[in-house]
C-alpha cells in the first residue's frame, strides 16, 4: 500500500496537519507568522547544504533553521532594529544566499520548484518515518511546555513573575517550529509552509471561543486541507503544496460567513 505515492502523501499530510494545528495556534497568538516564514526561507539553505555535503535533508534543515531561530532570538535582544525589519533581513538574506549557492552547484540536477512549493512525488517511506516520529516528538514536547508557553503568550511578565520561565519555553517553541519546517518542507515547500500553519488556524479562530477548541478546529482544518488538496492535486494535476493552501483559504473564507452571522446576531 505504501508503494502508492498518493497513499504516502496522505499519510505524510495527516502527520503534518496534526502538528501544524497546535503549533499554528501559537504562531498566530504570538504574531510569529513572519518569524515562521523566515525559518522556512532558511530551509532552502538547509536543502542545498544537505545536497552538497550529502547528508540527510530533514536533519540539515532542522539544524540550519534552529540556528537561524537562535540567532534571531539573540539579535532581537542586542540590536535596536524593529522585529519585522530584522526578520526581513534574515529571511531574504538566507533565501538569497541559498539561491547564490545554487548557482555554484550547477553540476547537480536540482528541482528548485519542488523545494519552494513542495513535491508530492518526492515523499518516500523514509520521509514518512521522519514525519511521524518527528511530529510525535514535537507534539510531546509541546504538550509538556503547554502551560508555561500559553501563560507567557497571554502575558509574559505575569508568567515570569509567577515562576514559569517564559524565556526558556519561547526558545523551545522556536526549535519546535524549526523541527516542523524540517519535516514538512518536502511536502509543502519553503514558501507555503507558513500558509498551512496560519490559514487553518485563522479559520479556527473565527469558529472558536476558547484555546483548546481553537487547537482542535485548526487540526481539523489542516486535515481537511490536506485531504481535499491532495485529492485535487491528484485528480486535476496541480502542485500539492499550493493546492493544500488554496483549500485552506477556501475553508477560511467559509468560516468568515459564520463570523459575519455571529456579529449580526450580537
Amino acid at each position, binding site marked *: 500500500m505504501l508503494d502508492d505515492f498518493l497513499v504516502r502523501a496522505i499519510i505524510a499530510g495527516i502527520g503534518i496537519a496534526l502538528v501544524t494545528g497546535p503549533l499554528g495556534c501559537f504562531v498566530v*497568538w504570538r504574531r510569529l507568522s513572519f518569524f515562521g516564514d523566515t525559518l522556512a526561507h532558511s530551509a532552502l539553505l538547509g536543502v542545498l547544504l544537505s545536497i552538497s555535503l550529502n547528508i540527510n535533508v530533514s536533519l540539515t534543515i532542522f539544524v540550519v533553521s534552529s540556528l537561524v531561530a537562535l540567532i534571531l532570538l539573540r539579535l532581537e535582544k542586542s540590536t535596536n532594529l524593529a522585529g519585522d525589519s530584522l526578520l526581513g533581513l534574515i529571511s531574504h538574506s538566507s533565501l538569497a544566499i541559498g539561491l547564490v549557492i545554487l548557482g555554484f552547484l550547477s553540476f547537480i540536477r536540482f528541482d528548485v520548484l519542488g523545494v519552494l512549493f513542495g513535491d508530492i512525488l518526492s515523499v518516500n517511506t523514509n520521509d514518512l518515518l521522519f514525519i511521524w516520529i518527528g511530529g510525535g516528538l514535537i507534539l510531546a514536547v509541546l504538550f509538556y511546555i503547554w502551560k508555561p508557553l500559553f501563560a507567557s503568550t*497571554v*502575558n509574559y*511578565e*505575569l508568567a515570569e513573575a509567577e515562576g514559569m520561565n517564559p524565556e526558556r519555553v519561547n526558545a523551545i517553541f522556536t526549535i519546535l517550529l524549526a523541527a516542523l519546517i524540517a519535516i514538512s518542507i518536502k511536502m509543502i515547500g519553503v514558501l507555503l509552509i507558513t500558509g498551512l500553519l496560519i490559514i487553518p488556524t485563522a479559520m479556527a479562530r473565527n469558529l472558536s*471561543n*476558547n484555546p483548546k477548541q481553537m487547537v482542535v478546529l485548526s487540526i481539523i482544518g489542516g486535515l481537511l486541507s490536506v485531504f481535499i488538496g491532495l485529492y485535487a492535486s491528484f485528480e486535476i494535476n496541480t502542485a500539492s503544496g499550493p493546492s493544500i493552501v488554496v483549500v485552506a483559504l477556501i475553508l477560511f473564507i467559509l468560516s468568515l460567513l459564520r463570523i459575519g452571522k455571529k456579529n449580526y446576531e450580537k
Partner: protein
Amino acid sequence: MNTSDTLVRLSKAGIYKDKKWLVRDVDLEINRGKIVTLIGPNGSGKTTTAKIALGLYKSISGNVERNTQNISYVPQKVSIDWTLPVRVIDFMVLTQNLKQDDILEALDLTGVKHLKRSNLRDLSGGEFQRVLLARAIAKKPDLLVLDEPVQGVDFTGEVALYSLIKEISEKLNCGILLISHDLHVVMSATDYVVCLNGHVCCCGTPKDVAQSKYYKELFGEKSAELLSIYEHNHDHVHSSDGNIIKEIK
C-alpha cells in the same frame, strides 16, 4: 521583626538603564500578613520597583532576597489580542491548576462569578480588573503584587475590593505589595507606605508619611490635609526628575 516572616527584602535595589536611574537605592521589606503600599507620581518608579521585587529584571544594582516561590502578580496592564480566545475560566488556571470550587470562590469574592464563561475581550475594564484580582488570589499566594489593581473599577467596587485585599492579607497571612493612586483609601488600608520619586522619599506608617514634608511636596497640600498637617525639616531637595540635588544637614 522576625526575619523568617520576611517574604521579600530589597536592599539598595535600583536599576540603571540608558544612562539614567529608573529607580535607585530602594530599601523595602514585605512581611507576611502586611500590606506595603508604593505611592508616588507618574514615572517615579513604582512599577519598576514592583518588578524588581518580582525578579523581572536581569541586571539590577543592590540586592533582592526572595523567600517564596508562591507569588501572584496583577500587572498594571494586560491586553488580550483578538487572535487569542480566552474565557475567564481558562484565564483562572493560567499559571496554576485549581479546583473548580476554588475558581468559583475567588470569582465570587471579587464579584464576577456570573462572567466565568465570558471571553476576556468582552469584559469591561472594571470587570477585567476584578478577574485579574480573582486569578491572583485563587492560588492562595504567599506574596501578592498588585499594580493598580482597582483601576477602572466603580467607586463602591473600589472600596469593596480594597477591603477584600485587606481581608485576604489577614486570611491567607500573605504579604501584599500594592501600587495605588487612591491615596485616601490606601492610607486607611495599609500597614506601611513607601513614597517613591526615583528613590525612597519617605516611608513609614500611613500617618507618618502623611505628615511628611515630601509627601506634601509630591501630592500637594490638599492630600496632606486629608489626614493632618505637620511640618518638619527637609534633609534634601529634588530636581525635576526626582534626583536628590542637595542634602541639607
